[in-house]
Each structure stands twice: as structure tokens, then as C-alpha cells.
């Protein structure tokens, strides 16, 4: 293992290994994955760049505290399955996180190499290890041999629910995940496109959880099919975790938003991803193929939508965003990929009206130019409309990707569940406990729209808290006299 003996200087001399990807003008015509992944040699070389700091700072940048230097050391030693096991001590879905985490804002941001050098490509290494494991037989995952009879209900099969379930099942709990749609994965299946996260990978991960003993119930809407109270009562669950995501698309409430050809990002992406509209008529769900597509918004969802539209055959696909590119919440990599693929960026622009053709289909997005004012509460400069600057962008398909509010389906049907004024469920810090005894929550339904890994972190925090609750049977309100014991 001479590689391990490289000097610090030698390590720093190795350039950051680029991610092999499909050429832009080929990939913008197909739905195959953009990033092709490292091979073993490239992965080892990249892993050798890690200085194996005595006090690693990268771990602080990871919402689930993956033991990053440890797994990278195993890659250097070519023990790839061992590296996968090491990651899975903290993160059960590395093949997902290695693809969709904003590492540049997390672990790679706090890597000591960043600044003078480029940070270690931790995300790409995580992805390599996970893919290697999937292709070369499964690493063993420790599942508690003693099963207890405690039933836990997880509502929603997105990132927070999957993460919560994976911990609890390892600790011996009897875990059931309830999903409203007919397939599992939440935003990972309906939202994130095939070219960023292949469905086969997600299905593999979910199948793994099933093998570990997690029960999966599709077509089950908590709040409709059964309420939270019924789960806790007659159905015999001792705790419920609500990881239902932020699933209520925002619109701008401007004229013409209900014209034909105007979609929410959720609808557009769900038709294509979950319902496979790109296979129409092989698959039954249709989608309008736009020639001139306008996507409103600057987040990752907007990038997913605009790149999807391009792949479906759009002649022009344009991002319309009200601030400048600096303020865009999308990952740099996604913006970069989008530009390579020929996406047009129309920043400092905000639509004010959509105009229809004679048949009622959208044909024009009327927009205003924007300027930037003082930074707002979130530190980003606020967009200010420039009066009289109206101009038209031709558009036969418009996708509104300006974010999601919280879906009130559960809060409306669950007494004693406190929400804030935006409808987000209120939890006590870190442990995910809601105002209702035995009910926990995490992910976007608590935080508002955020990232996959933050949701997973919240799911795991809640898992620990659920374990503690079941072992102690203590709830904060028990002592304050707020008696909600069921």
C-alpha cells in the first residue's frame, strides 16, 4: 500500500480529478445520467489528495457527520466495500447523496485544501463507493438481531422518511413507511430527473431497506386513508414520523397563470419523472412538448425543469430569474451543466403576465426588467422592478419553479399539531418532537424547501429522538401538564 505513504507535498501535487460526463450536446438529447462517475483508478487518485488531517474539518460540513477521512482512507487502501460500510454507518443512501448533495456548500467547503487548492471531491468519492458496492455485491449492514414489537409509522417515503426508517429498523423497530403515490422515494422519484438520479439506483436503495425489514405501503394518504390519531390508536403505532415534504406549489398570482401550457414545476417534473411522460404513448401520461420553453425560478428545481424541457425537444429553453446569477439558489454544478447544454439565462427578469393565443395556449411571457436593491433578511440583494421596462419573451410552455409551501393535508386532520404561519410543523429543536405526543416531524415540512441531505439529517435526528421516547416514555409536555397522552 505504497499509496498511503505519499508525502503531503506529493498529495497536494495531485490535481483534482474531473468528473467524466456525457458531452453536453449529446446529453441534452437524452435522459441518461450526465455524470458518469469515477473509475477505481481515478477514485484512488482523488482519494490520495486527502491530507488525512488530524482534526478533520470536513465532517463539520456534513449534516449527517459521515466519517469522511475514514472512508477516504479505505479508498486509498482499495477497500471499496469497506469504504461503503464506513459511509453507511452514518448515511444509508450514499448513492443518492453522492449525486444530489450540494457538497460545495457542505463538506467540500470546509475541506482544508479549499482556498489555496481545490477541495477533495468528497461527493464524487462517496458516489464512487456507493456505485462500486451496488455493482460488486452488497456490503453487510448491521441490523439488530433482536426485533422489538414496537411499531413506528413513517409518513412519506422521501429522504427524511427513508433516513429515519433506516436507523429505526437497524435498532430493531417494526417500521412501516406510508406513501401517498404509487412509487416510493418522494421528491427523489417525482422531482429529481433521471439524468441526475437514475431511478434504478433509487429503487435499489429502497429494495435494500425492504430487505432490512422496512415495510412499504404505497397508495396510502395519511390524513385521508387514515389519520395520525388512528395510526397512534387502533393501528397500534407507538410513534409517527411526519416527513411529508413541502408539496404545495407556489404560483405568482399573475394574469394568465392558469392558461394551457403553464405548469407548476411539480406537475411538469412529475409527469416526466414519476409518470414517464417522455415515453408517451408507450406510457399513458402525456406532456406538452414546448418549442420555446420558459422556466421561472433560479433553484435546483428550475434547473431540473429547464434541462428536462430541453431534453424533451425544446428549441429554446430559458431560465427567467428575478435576481442575478450570484443570488441563484441552484447548485453551481447544475447552473454550469445547464449552460453547457444550451440553456439561456435571462436574469434580472420577472414575468408579470402570460398572454394566450386564440386557442387559449400560452404564447408570450410578458416580463419586467429588475434591478437589485439592498440585501434583505436572507442576505441576498432584493430585486426591484424597473418601471416601464416591459418586454416579451415568446413561450409556448411555461414552468413555474418558484418554490413550494407546506401541504396542509395532515395538519388539517390532526388535532394538537402546531404549525407556524406558513404551515410548517413546529418541532422542538434537533429532536423533531412536535406539539403532539408521539408525533415527530422533519425535512421540508418543518424547514420549508431545503435539500435532500438536510432532510435526511432531520430524519436521523428524529429517529434518535423516537428511540429515546420509546425507551423513556417521556414527553416534554408530560411535566408541564399539557396532557395529550393517547
Amino acid at each position, binding site marked *: 500500500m505504497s499509496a498511503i505513504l505519499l508525502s503531503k507535498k506529493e498529495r497536494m501535487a495531485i490535481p483534482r480529478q474531473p468528473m467524466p460526463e456525457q458531452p453536453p450536446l449529446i446529453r441534452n438529447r437524452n435522459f441518461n445520467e450526465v455524470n458518469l462517475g469515477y473509475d477505481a483508478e481515478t477514485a484512488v487518485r482523488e482519494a490520495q489528495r486527502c491530507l488525512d488531517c488530524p482534526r478533520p474539518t470536513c465532517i463539520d460540513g456534513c449534516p449527517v457527520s459521515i466519517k469522511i477521512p475514514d472512508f477516504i482512507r479505505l479508498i486509498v487502501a482499495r477497500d471499496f466495500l469497506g469504504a461503503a460500510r464506513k459511509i453507511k454507518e452514518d448515511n444509508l443512501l450514499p448513492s443518492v447523496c453522492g449525486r444530489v448533495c450540494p457538497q460545495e456548500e457542505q463538506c467540500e467547503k470546509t475541506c482544508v485544501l479549499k482556498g489555496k487548492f481545490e477541495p477533495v471531491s468528497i461527493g464524487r468519492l462517496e458516489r464512487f463507493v456507493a456505485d462500486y458496492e451496488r455493482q460488486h455485491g452488497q456490503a453487510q449492514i448491521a441490523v439488530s438481531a433482536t426485533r422489538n414489537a414496537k411499531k413506528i409509522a413513517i409518513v412519506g417515503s422521501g429522504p427524511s422518511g427513508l433516513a429515519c426508517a433506516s436507523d429505526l429498523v437497524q435498532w430493531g423497530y417494526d417500521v412501516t413507511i406510508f406513501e401517498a403515490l404509487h412509487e416510493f422515494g418522494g421528491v427523489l422519484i417525482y422531482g429529481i430527473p433521471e439524468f441526475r438520479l437514475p431511478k434504478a439506483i433509487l429503487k435499489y436503495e429502497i429494495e435494500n431497506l425492504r430487505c432490512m425489514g422496512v415495510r412499504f405501503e404505497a397508495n396510502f394518504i395519511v390524513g385521508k386513508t387514515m389519520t395520525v390519531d388512528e395510526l397512534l390508536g387502533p393501528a397500534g403505532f407507538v410513534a409517527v414520523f411526519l416527513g411529508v415534504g413541502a408539496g404545495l406549489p407556489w404560483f405568482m398570482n399573475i394574469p394568465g397563470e392558469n392558461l394551457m401550457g403553464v405548469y407548476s414545476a411539480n406537475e411538469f417534473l412529475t409527469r416526466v419523472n414519476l409518470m414517464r411522460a417522455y415515453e408517451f404513448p408507450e*406510457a399513458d401520461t402525456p406532456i406538452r412538448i414546448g418549442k420555446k420553453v420558459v422556466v421561472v425560478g433560479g433553484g435546483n428545481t428550475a434547473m431540473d425543469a429547464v434541462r428536462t424541457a430541453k431534453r424533451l425537444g425544446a428549441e429554446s429553453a430559458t431560465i427567467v430569474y428575478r435576481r442575478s446569477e450570484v443570488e441563484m439558489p441552484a447548485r453551481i454544478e447544475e447552473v454550469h451543466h445547464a449552460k453547457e447544454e444550451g440553456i439561456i439565462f435571462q436574469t434580472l427578469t420577472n414575468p408579470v403576465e402570460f398572454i394566450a393565443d386564440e386557442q387559449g395556449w400560452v404564447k408570450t411571457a410578458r416580463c419586467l426588467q429588475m434591478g437589485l436593491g439592498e440585501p434583505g433578511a436572507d442576505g441576498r440583494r432584493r430585486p426591484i422592478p424597473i418601471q416601464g421596462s416591459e418586454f416579451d419573451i415568446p413561450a409556448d410552455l411555461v414552468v413555474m419553479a418558484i418554490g413550494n409551501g407546506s401541504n396542509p393535508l395532515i395538519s388539517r386532520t390532526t388535532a394538537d399539531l402546531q404549525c407556524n404561519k406558513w404551515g410548517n410543523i413546529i418541532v422542538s429543536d434537533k429532536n423533531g418532537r412536535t406539539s403532539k405526543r408521539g408525533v415527530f416531524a422533519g425535512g421540508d415540512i418543518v424547514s420549508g424547501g431545503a435539500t435532500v441531505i438536510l432532510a435526511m439529517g432531520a430524519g436521523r435526528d428524529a429517529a434518535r429522538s423516537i428511540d429515546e421516547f420509546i425507551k423513556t416514555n417521556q414527553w416534554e409536555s408530560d411535566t408541564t401538564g399539557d396532557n395529550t397522552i393517547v
Partner: protein
Amino acid sequence: MPRLSSIPVNQWNRPMNLILHAEFIAPDIKKFVIDAPLIARKAQPGQFVILRVWEKGERIPITIVDGDAVNGAVTLIVQGLGKTTRQMNLLKTGDYLHDIVGPLGQATHIENFGLAVCISGGVGTAEALPIAKALKAAGNNVISIIGARQKALVICEAEMRAVCDEVFVTTDDGSYGQPGLVTDVLKTILTRERKPDFVLAVGPLPMMQGVAEMTRPFAIKTMVSLNSIMIDGTGMCGGCRATVGGKTVFVCVDGPEFDAHQVNFSEIARRQKQFSEHEKISIDILNTQPDKAQHQCRLSKVISDTSLT
């Protein structure tokens, strides 16, 4: 545990969504009784399910006609119009639905209004039936006006007669009941001294719009049940949005019933036709290459399932 066929199973590998009974009650209109105990237990008048017929099928909303909590069965009545409903109507007793989820939407607001009129067109009569029953049970005098194109397409008349105080039937071609439209009957009823206190209309959009215009001058509370294109049915996609009272609503979670006098019908009519060209293509394939549009190839399902592990 490989799944051996396209039969949907629950977490214990038990078959789900068995069609306990299926029969045509009129040309292209089929009644299904489906084993769905959890939905049956919760179903209330006015609510709907979303179903899929095969693994690449679209999700379509269908109104629940009856929820039998004792036997754990829901009754649906389906008119074969689009590809999915035609495909659904090929299913027989003993077959399985690929997916069914619900109950969705808000239940009809039921109270003792006094005199209630339930107006239904075509397959809408099946949807109006549970509401008529509930209105009657709440103490209303209930009048039913059933409309259909022709005699053979009049459905649920006996069931309506069993619960309503008065039942009128109209057919477009005059082959049964009164010739003409349901609105002709409504017009007569509105000339009576005792005006209705509540009107519900379920059926084709022009009919519902016609009813709305007729009751508007009398300021009679009128509700219509909208049938939008939906995907998830839980408010996630927003595809079903409509404008009611100048505001955007989501039919799946805010409805499906809305104040008829506030609804922007022309917008709904346009949005319903968004995919009519796609629908033609799908139906064409169903008619000319039924194997391609059907899913019965179980082999591919087994392969796709086992390749995951």
C-alpha cells in the same frame, strides 16, 4: 420474494384491489365493486379515488359511488371515454386494479337545506346518487333530474327513485322520459311557488354551466362537482387548478365541489382539453394495437422486478 404477476400486493404479499364484481349497466358504462377496505371505511359522498390500470398507466380521478365499510368495498361507475377508462372497462370480476388511493377531496357539505335538487347528466348520476341519499337522510325534500343522451344511457334511476321524493328523466333524443335537457325540467321547477333551497349539478361542463346560469337570478345556493385533470390528487402538482371567485383553487384538495356561481367555466373547459390530441393517439393505439396498449405481459414485470435485486 418475487412478485409473480402484475397482481398488486400489500406489504404482506397479499393481493390488493381485487375487483369483486364488474358489470356493464349501460353501453360503455361499467359498475365496479372493488375490495378496498381502508377507502370504504372513510369514503363520504362527493369524494373520489385516483386509480391506475397498469404499470405505465396514467392516474385518473373517479368519484366514489358507494363505500361499504362492512364489506370493505367501494363502488365505482366508469364510462369508457378516454384510453384509461376504456382500458378499465375491459377489466372483469376477479381482475385487479393496479393502484387505487383515497378517499380524496372534500366531502359534500350536507345539511337540511329544505328543498334540494340533484341534477345529473350521463355517468354523473352515479356520482349524484350518494349525495342525494345523504341529503335525504339529513331531512331534505330531494328532487332528482336525470339526463342522458338516450334511454340506454340512463343509469341509477331505480336507486334514485328509492331515495328521492320526485325523479325526472330527460333524454336528448326523447327515447325515454321527457325529451330535451335537464335544464328544461329545472326551468319548470323554478316556476313553482316553492323554490329550491339547494341545487347540485354533476355532469358535463355545459350542463353544469347551464344550471348555474339558471339558478343565478334566483340566488339559489348551487354547487357543481368539477372534474379536472389530476396527477397526485393531494395538492402537490397543481394541475387541477381552476378559478373560482377570481381565486385559483386546487380541485383535488379544495373541491371537487364549488359554488357554481363563482366558477370560471370557460377556463375549466379549455384546461380539460389540454391533452385531447394525446388522447386521440392513445385511443388509436388501443384500437389498432391492443397488445401494445394493454399490459398483460407478465413476463416483463417479473424480469423488471427481479433485476432490482
